[in-house]
């Protein structure tokens, strides 16, 4: 939608008598229900005659299935169905169409689903899967992309003989010319690891068929409308006969963007038993059978002129796809955009191989590959700064783009607050002062031989704890991402006889606060208290289409759609009031549930009364509006060029760390973050997004790793997989740069993923600043840090 289109809808724009709700701290609408334990998550929902589903996983990384004997399982009391691939129609699904609900001939990773049971109790179901006997013939296991790409490597999916299901190439400019123009060139390899979403609520689903054969799913999907379409094809039910209801969801972070095999499996169990079936994972199953973030090896080479101007960037990425392909195989589409467009770079070339292995497979995870790309890029920008003898802040400012520019990859930056983000974050952190104290000694300890590039002047041989400061910036989509054919969202708005509003939005709520943002926008436009707004967002039979909760798109796209529906309703309401009150519409405004005199704010009539007059008076009308908002973005062309988002988000984090040279422990002391969010809608909510993203990013950088050896997961528990706790929370200083994007609702852009993206790079840069040791492989565990320190000093 163009700016003029938004204004056209606002035919009776608000005045400013009442304090605006935009930018205020609004508590989350569903918080009381969650705080009292009344929210019914998937594991809390029990339907009459409901059965319990359980899956038998292969637990071997690569094997041929020779035989499955389910007779002992079927013979158990209370077992109502046992399914294998022979019992269902196998429709390939997933982004690479290389997965099926149950596996028939071969398994290609440990999590592969081989059989499933529905039983009267969870205990019987668990017992039954243990009674299923599968005979396998083990096949050679490919544990890394390196092995998979070797000549004569075992083939994982016969239809892809080179184990490389996807390759992407991108370029703008001429890298050879860029190399010639460079005074300084840096080249390095960055190794990014596998991490799990660790939603506190584990995955689950309830499936049943109603009396007329319609399939009803209580599902945790983040993308209900795409899901409904794809799932209908897998389970053989017409899409118009599938209804998706989303209960409160115990965390998403991208994990619920794909259809996972357990979901069609549960439908097949419901079909086989003609009863509702609930399937909820244990924590161990959650680690085993939900995909992770993409592990990727990034080889990056880049150059600059003496004055710091970037000249070129040459990128080669290899992703570990695992044994199947999810939407995760498309994360390079976002990664490439950071390399091409975080800064102004005239010459960029990128090649990506997505490679099958027999590891567990990966999917979307907050940032969609961008944290990985940003780690490589922003580490290398610091390496370039050092080669150039420039301050990293100055080098970044030299290459920051201006509002109005179009990036090398064709993205139009109508707003770009990166320069302000860099300056504000640096100022809040005391950058200049603290960079002088590199390798600052905090505590004197044992005498030992130590040296390092940056800290030799501070007698490191005497220090045990050293401090450092580092920065990293980010670039991300802020106005949706046109990956699918439509990136839109619909809204239906109705006003009841008493001034109560119901908003039906296509957007999904996974904890991020979208329902509160939508209520806030509608309340703002219609001059009603926020408590009058009810948001319904979880039932595909009621709500209009939306592409899903991903790409940090909900504030921008669902927000715009709600804004347009509300503005149209506002126009109708003011017109009706004008007729009733015999005033001109431009003399009226809506405030606190009343129609008021615009000149002095004096209440004239309640909104409820206006509606009742319209409803029961001569006109017999009600006010209901609908909107479908499609952002003004374009699908990328086959060369990955194009303005895929309606606007773009930027940000900078400046991070202080303390490194213990004796133990290798890195502690994050303080993060100063500045984000260009266009405009703050709900300050409480947006702070929560930034704080949560930072702490999740600290876990990504320092403590988290799904350890996979020989295709097997070594640490599928919170005992051995460490996410951050309260004591890892650093001091946080958060600023918002409000660039007021012309396309955003009230100027707002997306924020959901941004705060996680630069965290690891900023920490690694700070660790380098503290120790003089550059670590290019995550996570920065004490063992790794200590090893790298020892290597550097030996």
């Amino acid at each position: 939608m163009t700016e003029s289109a938004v204004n056209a809808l606002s035919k009776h724009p608000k005045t400013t008598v009442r304090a605006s709700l935009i930018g205020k701290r609004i508590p989350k609408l569903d918080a009381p229900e969650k705080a009292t334990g009344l929210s019914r998550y998937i594991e809390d929902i029990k339907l009459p005659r409901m059965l319990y589903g359980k899956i038998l996983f292969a637990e071997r990384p690569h094997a041929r299935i020779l035989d499955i004997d389910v007779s002992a399982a079927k013979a158990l009391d209370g077992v109502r169905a046992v399914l294998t691939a022979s019992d269902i129609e196998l429709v390939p699904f997933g982004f690479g169409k290389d997965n099926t609900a149950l596996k028939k001939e071969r398994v290609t990773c440990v999590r592969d689903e081989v059989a499933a049971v529905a039983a009267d109790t969870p205990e019987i179901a668990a017992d039954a899967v243990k009674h299923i006997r599968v005979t396998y013939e083990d096949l050679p296991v490919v544990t890394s992309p390196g092995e998979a790409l070797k000549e004569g490597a075992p083939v994982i999916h016969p239809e892809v003989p080179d184990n490389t299901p996807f390759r992407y190439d991108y370029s703008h400019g001429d890298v050879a010319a860029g190399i010639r123009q460079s005074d300084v060139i840096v080249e390095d390899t960055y190794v990014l690891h596998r991490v799990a979403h660790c939603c506190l609520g584990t995955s689950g689903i309830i499936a049943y068929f109603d009396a007329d054969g319609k399939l009803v799913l209580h599902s945790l999907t983040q993308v209900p409308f795409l899901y409904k379409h794809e799932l209908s094809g897998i389970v053989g039910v017409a899409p118009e006969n599938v209804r998706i209801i989303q209960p409160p969801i115990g965390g998403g972070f991208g994990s619920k963007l794909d259809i996972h095999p357990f979901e069609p499996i549960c439908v097949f169990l419901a079909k086989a038993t003609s009863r509702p079936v609930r399937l909820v994972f244990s924590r161990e199953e959650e680690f085993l059978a939900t995909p992770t973030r993409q592990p990727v090896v990034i080889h990056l080479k880049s150059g600059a002129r003496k004055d710091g101007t970037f000249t070129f960037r040459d990128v080669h990425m290899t992703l570990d796809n695992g044994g199947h392909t999810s939407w995760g195989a498309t994360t390079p589409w976002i990664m490439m955009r950071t390399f091409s467009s975080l800064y102004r770079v005239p010459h960029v070339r990128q090649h990506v191989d997505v490679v099958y292995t027999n590891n567990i497979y990966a999917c979307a995870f907050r940032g969609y590959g961008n944290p990985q790309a940003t780690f490589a890029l922003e580490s290398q920008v610091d390496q370039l700064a050092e080669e150039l003898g420039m301050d990293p802040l100055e080098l970044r400012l030299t290459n920051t783009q201006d509002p109005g520019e179009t990036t090398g990859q064709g993205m139009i930056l109508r707003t770009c607050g990166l320069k302000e983000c860099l300056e504000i974050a640096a100022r809040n952190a005391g950058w200049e002062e603290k960079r002088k104290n590199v390798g600052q000694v905090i505590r004197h300890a044992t005498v030992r031989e130590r040296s390092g590039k940056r800290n030799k002047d501070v007698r490191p041989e005497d220090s045990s704890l050293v401090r450092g400061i580092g920065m990293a910036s980010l670039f991300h989509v802020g106005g949706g991402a046109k990956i699918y054919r439509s990136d839109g969202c619909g809204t239906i708005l109705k006003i009841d006889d008493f001034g109560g509003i119901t908003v039906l939005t296509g957007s999904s709520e996974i904890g991020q606060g979208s329902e509160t943002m939508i209520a806030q926008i509608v309340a703002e436009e219609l001059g009603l208290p926020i408590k009058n707004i009810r948001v319904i967002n979880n039932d595909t039979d009621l709500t209009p289409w939306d592409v899903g909760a991903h790409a940090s798109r909900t504030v921008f796209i669902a927000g715009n759609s709600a804004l347009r529906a509300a503005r149209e309703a506002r126009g109708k309401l003011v017109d009706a009031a004008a007729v009733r009150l015999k005033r001109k519409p431009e003399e009226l405004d809506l405030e606190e549930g009343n129609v008021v005199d615009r000149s002095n704010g004096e209440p004239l009539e309640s909104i409820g009364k206006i509606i009742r007059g319209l409803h029961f008076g001569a006109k017999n009308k009600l006010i209901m509006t609908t909107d479908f908002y499609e952002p003004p973005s374009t699908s990328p062309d086959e060369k990955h060029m194009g303005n895929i988002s309606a606007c773009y988000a930027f940000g900078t984090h400046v991070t202080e760390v303390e490194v213990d040279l004796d133990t290798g422990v890195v502690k994050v002391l303080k993060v100063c973050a500045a984000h260009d969010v266009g405009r703050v809608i709900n300050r409480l909510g947006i702070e929560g997004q930034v704080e949560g993203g930072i702490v999740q990013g600290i876990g990504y950088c320092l403590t988290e790793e799904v350890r996979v050896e020989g295709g097997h997961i070594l640490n599928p528990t919170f005992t051995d997989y460490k996410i951050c706790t309260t004591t890892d929370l650093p001091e946080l200083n958060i600023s918002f740069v409000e660039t007021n994007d012309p396309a955003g609702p009230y100027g707002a852009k997306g924020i959901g993923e941004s705060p996680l993206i630069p965290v690891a790079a900023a920490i690694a840069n700070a660790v380098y600043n503290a120790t003089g040791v550059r670590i290019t492989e995550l996570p920065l565990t004490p063992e790794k840090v200590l090893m790298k320190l020892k290597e550097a000093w030996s």
Partner: protein
Amino acid sequence: MHKVLDKVELSFIVNGEAVRLKAMPHATLLDVLRNDLELTGTKYGCGEGECGACSVLLNGKVVNSCLVLALECEGSQILTIEGLSTNGRLHPIQKAFIDYGAIQCGFCTPGMIMATYALLEANPSPTAMEVKRGLEGNLCRCTGYRKIVDAVLSLS
């Protein structure tokens, strides 16, 4: 085949109400609260005492109810999230969590609130570090903990 165990009779007080029921000897307090008493506000997050989503008060002390056998609770006083608000009025801890934005997906919230309750009973005016230490056993993946800590500090 397994020997089928018999259920054992059990009585305790949950949220001020006397409860008598029969539970399997291996049933955890979490199982009984969620399945027998339908007090589903107490959450399963990991089943091994690592995440704190199942935190309840047992005789005034916070426990991971997934690690406590129901039979151990004979004669005990148990407080769950459902027992915190009275007559539809939110407990001040619940109110603070709501107002301070300490709730996103909300899955950790009941456990976090019960751990806070125990913390404030033991130490009505904790420092920030004491709050962090007191809630260290409760994982949250959404909020980054800052707003949780702020909410708790607002009560001290």
